[in-house]
């Protein structure tokens, strides 16, 4: 088995419309197995587009991309859907929970679609729920729980089928700092416990500092990357410095 889980080469994405816009201008990127990488960059730098191309939500205009040596863009719709729910896990800024389902049903959704048998479902559910500490809200509806709880449920759903790659798009964007902190701690322990590879888009340097490596994007290109050293505090400072250097459109700082 290869050491590289995600391999992106010369990825281009153009939006054609009244105004043509090149969102991605050739990105080369590799994610190693069991690596945790954050993607940062100013608004409009193309980081979400990049993630969407990897998560097969958006189709790239040009370039190649393989996940586990498989090219998802060669699959038909049904196989692609299967691929998404077996190989990938998603965590979104807006949680993306199904409102008609209870918390428990939301978590089980990927398994029911794959028609996993009931016994395995129960055992996997129990494991994930214990890990995330959401036993008490299992029978609740999605609008009865807090934002932090919602994100935990979304994470539970993303990891219940043990994906090889977990993708997160601004997972703390809708959360207060306390909830954000606990969600990030969770990501870190999932990464350590389940050996999951993680790719996360964020604009928050504190959130980004949970990763092992941070890549910076600007104007649809990879600009820079920083490896985490021994100290998280130092890592955080480096991230902030890079962002300050990027400056310009980076309002969020």
């Amino acid at each position, binding site marked *: 088995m290869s050491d590289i889980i995600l391999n992106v080469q010369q990825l281009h994405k153009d939006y054609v419309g009244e105004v043509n816009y090149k969102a991605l201008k050739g990105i080369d990127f590799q994610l190693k197995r069991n690596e945790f990488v954050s993607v940062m960059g100013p608004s409009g730098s193309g980081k979400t587009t990049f993630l969407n191309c990897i998560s097969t939500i958006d189709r790239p205009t040009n370039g190649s991309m393989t996940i586990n040596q498989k090219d998802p863009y060669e699959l038909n719709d049904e196989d692609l859907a*299967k691929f*998404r729910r077996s190989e990938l896990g998603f965590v979104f800024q807006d949680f993306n929970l199904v409102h008609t*389902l209870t918390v428990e049903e939301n978590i089980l959704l990927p398994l*029911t*679609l794959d028609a996993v048998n009931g016994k395995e479902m129960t055992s996997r559910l129990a494991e994930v729920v214990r890990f995330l500490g959401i036993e008490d809200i299992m029978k609740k509806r999605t609008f009865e729980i807090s934002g932090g709880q919602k994100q935990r449920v979304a994470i539970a759903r*993303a990891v219940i089928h043990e994906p090889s790659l977990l993708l997160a798009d601004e997972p703390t964007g809708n959360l207060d700092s306390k909830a954000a902190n606990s969600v990030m701690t969770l990501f870190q322990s999932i990464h350590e416990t389940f050996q999951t590879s993680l790719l996360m888009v964020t604009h928050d340097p504190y959130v980004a500092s949970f990763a092992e490596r941070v890549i910076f994007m600007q104007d649809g290109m990879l600009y820079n990357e920083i490896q985490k050293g021994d100290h998280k505090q130092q890592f955080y400072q480096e991230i902030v410095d890079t962002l300050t250097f990027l400056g310009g459109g980076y309002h969020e700082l």
Partner: protein
Amino acid sequence: MSFNHIVIQNIVRDKWTYISYFLSSVFSILVFFFFLIIAFHPMMDAIDTNSTLGIVMILCSMIVYIFSFVFIIYSMLAFLKKKTKSLGVFIISGASTKQVRKMVFRENMLIAFAAIITAIGVGLIVSPLFLMVVKNVLEAESFGMYVPVQAIAMTFILFSVLFFIVSQITTRFIKKEEAVQLLKADVTQEKLIRPTPWRLFLSILVSAVLLLPLKESPDVVESLGIVYIMMLFISLLMTIYIVLTQGILFTIRRLQKSASYYRKTNMLFVSNLQAKGNSHAHVIYLLSILLLAVFVTTSVLYSSYYNVEENTEAVYPYSFQYISHPNNPIEKEQQDIEFMETTLEQTEGDVDAYQSAFKTDEDRRIGFLSNTLFNALGTHEAIALSDNQYYVVAGNAGVMPNTDAIQDYVDDPLQYVGLEERMILVSGFRAVYYVIPDAIYDALNYPEYHVFAYELEEWTEKRDIAEKIESQLMTEPGERYVSSKISLYADELFVKRVIFFIGFMLSLIFLSAAMSILYFYLQTSLAGEKEKYLGMRKIGLSMKEMRVIVTRELSILIFVPFTIAAMLLFTVLFSIRDALSPAFFQMTTVGVGIILLLFTLSFFIIRKAYFKKLVA
């Protein structure tokens, strides 16, 4: 930027929200307009407003208008619901509720006038074609083109008033809190269906109690009259609603407990059904009732159309019947008969001629026939009476005659042997006929009427002969009475055709109303559904799985109402099966089958369009 400018921009910039509302309004008006085009046709002046046809026309116009009223209110409310969120934006940016109401009112009136004018315009363009269809359907040559000034004026005035009232009413439904609430929360949860076993039990009980006298004691029904019918109607409508919602709840619970709940898309489908249980139930209910109305109108009106031949024969038993009054000079009678017989000789096919007579007590409108004279009227089975027996024949169709008045005319009491309910002569000519032994008849001292009757083969096709004879021989009271079932049949057939046509139009209205309700419902929920499926697609729901869920949901919305309506229809038909002919059942089944075909077809079209919009 003036207030009216905002109103116009609201419509122009958001035309797709308005277009469905506009189209369903145009449709309602158009149907009503067409209806009036027929009703005000110069040809229709010939129809007496007090006749069955006149009353049916007036009644139907009223139904169409009331229905348009209800339907436009419904469309407007559905439209308003869709708009509530954008109204919230106005309210939050400082518009008072009064201003928002004024804005919505003006928008509505603007659309209303556009709809009225469009409908009349389209109506005028299509009306020649429409009148041509009417002409062919009714087989009435005189249904030509005309300028329907009255219809235009009436449509315009009535719908302006209607829209004015409806807009006034519906803007009252705009609630500030609700609109702002909608703006704040991205997910609003509609109320789930609650189990209401007592209400269910009570409603069924009340309906059952009300239904009972219908079968057991018709006199109670008659004494209560319209009140009873209204009560029964309302109670049935409520019962259907409660049974439907509780049935949906029960089905959801069953599905949730079933072992396959966690398999494939079942969970998504069932939970969606549960979350939208109430609004689904409303739509299914409305569609069921409308469909039932479609079934009943087509079925009932067809039945009236179907029995024309039988009904005609029941009142006018002969192709031609000539009754000669005792005062009619014998020469004239002979001359008339000769004319009739020579005319009839010219037709193809056999002509059976019968000759008979009866004596009558004019004061009591009682007729007497001898056994021989009765047997001479060939359409009935011959009887043989012994010296002291008599036989009774009804004189009015559908009325039980007095069976023993004959005793007043004879010395020794006679013995009653039987009753013929079918007419032997034109219905209503005499109240009752007594068939008595020849000897007793000869002894009776009452004036005698001569009867000449002719029966033609394939009489329904012999209209020209009937016209020829009737133009020469008309009834002259006190001398001769001429009647023909051929011309009665032709007249009746025309009336029934008009009624049938009206019924067809009514069912078309109901059917399209059902379709627009469905359309509105899907339109309103589209945005939310689209977002939901987009989210699920991201985490790995395939198009195929999505298609499965959408197909199941749409089939519930379309075929459940159909099944409910068909079941109710056939339950009703089965309970009155004795009064119906097997042919009627066959025709109803065919009719329901055609509608099923239409529904299946629209199901596939709707599914395709809806799916396309969902993934767009």
